[in-house]
């Protein structure tokens, strides 16, 4: 066949393959590109959510401010929460699932590459659907948990909540599809020798998260279906006058809601479990315990939901059970914290920006965990619930935990994704600004909360002892906002101008660092055969891993003729040169996703008596969806 150009120079960061242009992104089925799309999109929504936060804090800076109206304020805090949870943190985690899981387990792609593309497109479209209304002042305004009956027609007659119910329903499809995909990928696409107990901790935590997703999303799907039925078809699920129970929504929502908070935090836990060993030059302390505590957290996470509802009067028995379960879940969480500390103990620590974020997670998350245990006691919670104390709690776990972990992950994996380092100096500005800023913002909220300041109020009177704390919180927010600009600048600039990074720039031990940066489209020229948890350290510095298990005798080990022992790949070829079949690019998943979104977007028109428009969109969308699916399923993958 045709002669082939010289192999691409290793270490020369030339994007992911030789195909470029917008179409190569629209039709991509490469998990690394999809991961990149997730990353950019989620960072964009992160900035949107952050901007909303800045406006919220400006309004609360001093007593009785008139920066925004009450209605605008409601839209802002609703969209801030919804955006951060569903459009920023979850998809940022998804960016790492996509980019990292196949690399960490030694696979060439995910189990279902096209389904993966579909998940992304559904996310993008759902995100747009949810976000655009705020530009027209019709954004959802019922809180991120959308309590019905507040969100039913009777109390929320406008289109605002329509966007919320439909948007979340559509985003659920994306998360579920992705979760089935990653469960299958992790079970079935691991390289020879990559037993479950050799998987990198990030993959393990992601594995747990996928189960949380497939089991926690159905209850909220059902709750949303009921709300959609109530709002558009006149059912009475949440109609108190018809005998409905006002707690139905709350229970269904929190059955989802508490596992959801672990969906938000566990990927960040996974990321720091990669960062800490690397920069401490020591294997993760207590790997097995880390795995089991992760599973334990996921499992117990389904049995604590009603701690969000102590104030509704469930009775002594229910309160006691849920309180005990909640205190119990703090144990595996604490175990993780001690294991991270023990990992650093006596290590050769390098304080890179990524490491600083990881260490910050340990500290900040611990503070959030402690306030969590405080309101796991119903009498204490009755004082704290619906005050700024709760806001302080969940921002310490979500900002101090999830966001810190994810930012650390971005600094850590940026060289793998792009072949270039992010700038450490700018990174330090970003880190310290964020770290100081978040404490300045959220620590005072503990006090304003305990002094009685309720959540979700758009203004407050002077003289209640809240003024100083609010002022501090607002300045802290501005500091975070400014340091985020350093991050954005660093991120955008380093892609093309950062220092060139090799395949293993940090001296890490797991598989993803054995291949060039950025990885070639097929990831591994040959399937690696793995015989320990840190195959690359075995290769380069066996002393480091001498203390950990290297057993070869394992029932799950299936040696494959194509596999070779782990080595550092330095040369780059195209998939064609190596004869590796790659999934074909296709826009069918996008087409199908557009069909799904169109189908749902017909619903709001029902309310505005535009029956014909509604039917056209719904039926047209359904046809696109079904047609797209048929076209997709009947065309070959590769």
């Amino acid at each position: 066949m045709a002669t082939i150009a010289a192999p691409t120079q290793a270490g020369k960061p030339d994007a992911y393959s030789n195909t470029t242009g917008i179409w190569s992104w629209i039709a991509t089925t490469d998990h690394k590109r999809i991961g990149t799309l997730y990353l950019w999109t989620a960072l964009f929504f992160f900035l949107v959510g952050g901007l909303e936060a800045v406006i919220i804090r400006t309004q609360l800076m001093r007593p009785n401010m008139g920066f925004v109206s009450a209605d605008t304020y409601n839209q802002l805090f609703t969209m801030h929460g919804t955006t951060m949870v569903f459009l920023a943190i979850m998809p940022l985690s998804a960016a790492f699932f996509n980019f990292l899981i196949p690399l960490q387990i030694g696979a060439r792609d995910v189990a279902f590459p096209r389904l993966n593309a579909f998940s992304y497109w559904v996310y993008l479209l759902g995100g747009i659907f949810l976000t655009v209304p705020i530009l027209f002042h019709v954004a959802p305004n019922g809180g991120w948990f959308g309590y019905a009956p507040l969100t039913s027609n009777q109390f929320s007659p406008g289109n605002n909540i329509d966007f919320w119910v439909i948007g979340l329903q559509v985003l659920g499809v994306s998360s579920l599809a992705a979760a089935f995909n990653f469960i299958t990928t992790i079970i079935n696409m691991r390289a020879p020798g990559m037993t479950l107990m050799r998987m990198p901790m990030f993959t393990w935590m992601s594995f747990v998260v996928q189960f949380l997703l497939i089991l926690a999303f159905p209850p909220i799907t059902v709750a949303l279906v009921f709300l959609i039925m109530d709002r558009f078809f006149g059912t009475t699920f949440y109609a108190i006058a018809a005998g409905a129970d006002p707690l139905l929504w709350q229970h269904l929502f929190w059955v989802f809601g508490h596992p959801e908070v672990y969906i938000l935090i566990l990927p960040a836990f996974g990321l720091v479990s990669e960062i800490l060993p690397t920069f401490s030059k020591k294997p993760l302390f207590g790997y097995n315990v880390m795995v089991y505590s992760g599973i334990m957290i996921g499992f117990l996470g389904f049995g604590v939901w009603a701690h969000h509802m102590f104030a509704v009067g469930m009775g002594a028995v229910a309160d006691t059970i849920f309180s005990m379960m909640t205190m119990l879940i703090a144990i595996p969480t604490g175990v993780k914290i001690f294991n991270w500390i023990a990992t650093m103990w006596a290590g050769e620590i390098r304080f890179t920006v990524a490491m600083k974020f990881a260490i910050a997670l340990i500290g900040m998350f611990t503070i959030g965990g402690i306030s969590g245990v405080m309101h796991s006691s119903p009498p204490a919670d009755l004082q704290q619930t619906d005050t700024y104390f709760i806001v302080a709690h969940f921002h310490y776990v979500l900002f101090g935990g999830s966001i810190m972990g994810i930012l650390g992950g971005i600094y850590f994996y940026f060289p793998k994704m792009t072949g270039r380092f992010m700038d450490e100096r700018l990174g330090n500005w970003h880190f310290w600004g964020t770290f100081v800023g978040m404490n300045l913002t959220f620590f005072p909220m503990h006090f304003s909360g305990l002094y009685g300041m309720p959540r979700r109020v758009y203004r407050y009177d002077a003289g209640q002892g809240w003024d100083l704390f609010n002022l501090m919180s607002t300045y802290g927010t501005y500091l975070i906002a400014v340091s985020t600009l350093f991050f954005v600048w660093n991120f955008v600039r380093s892609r093309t101008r950062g220092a060139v990074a090799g395949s293993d720039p940090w001296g890490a031990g797991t598989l993803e660092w054995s291949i060039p940066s950025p990885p070639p489209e097929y990831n591994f020229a040959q399937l690696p055969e793995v015989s320990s948890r840190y195959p690359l350290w075995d290769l380069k510095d066996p002393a480091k891993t001498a203390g950990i298990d290297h057993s070869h005798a394992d029932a799950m080990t299936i040696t494959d003729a194509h596999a070779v022992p782990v080595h550092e790949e330095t040369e780059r070829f195209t998939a064609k040169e190596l004869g590796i079949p790659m999934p074909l690019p296709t826009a069918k998943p996008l087409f199908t996703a557009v069909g799904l979104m169109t189908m749902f977007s017909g619903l709001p028109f029902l309310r505005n008596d535009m029956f014909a428009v509604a039917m056209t969109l719904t039926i047209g969308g359904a046809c696109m969806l079904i047609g797209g699916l048929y076209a997709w399923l009947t065309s070959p993958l590769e």
Partner: protein
Amino acid sequence: MSDDAKHATETHHPTGNQYLKIAIILTVITAIEVWAYYIPALVASPLFNPALIIMSALKFAIVVLYYMHIKFDHSLFRLLFTASLILAMCTGTALMFLFGVFKL
């Protein structure tokens, strides 16, 4: 290795006639359920609901074990499904307790 697995399961798969027997058993259980529904004395008995639930669980198990051949398949599938099913049943039961469907 995958072929071995396949062979092992194929030999254990029920045959058409066994499937027929299973279908008959399922139909008979359903018939008993409906029959019981029409006997007022039975409906009044405190054992009526538990008995119906047990019969339905039995049918459920038979279909999953044999028709969905989870009994003969890789244990991974059993794990995936049973774990989810147990969690679903626990959650549903807990919800019903919380809403006072059962009286303690």
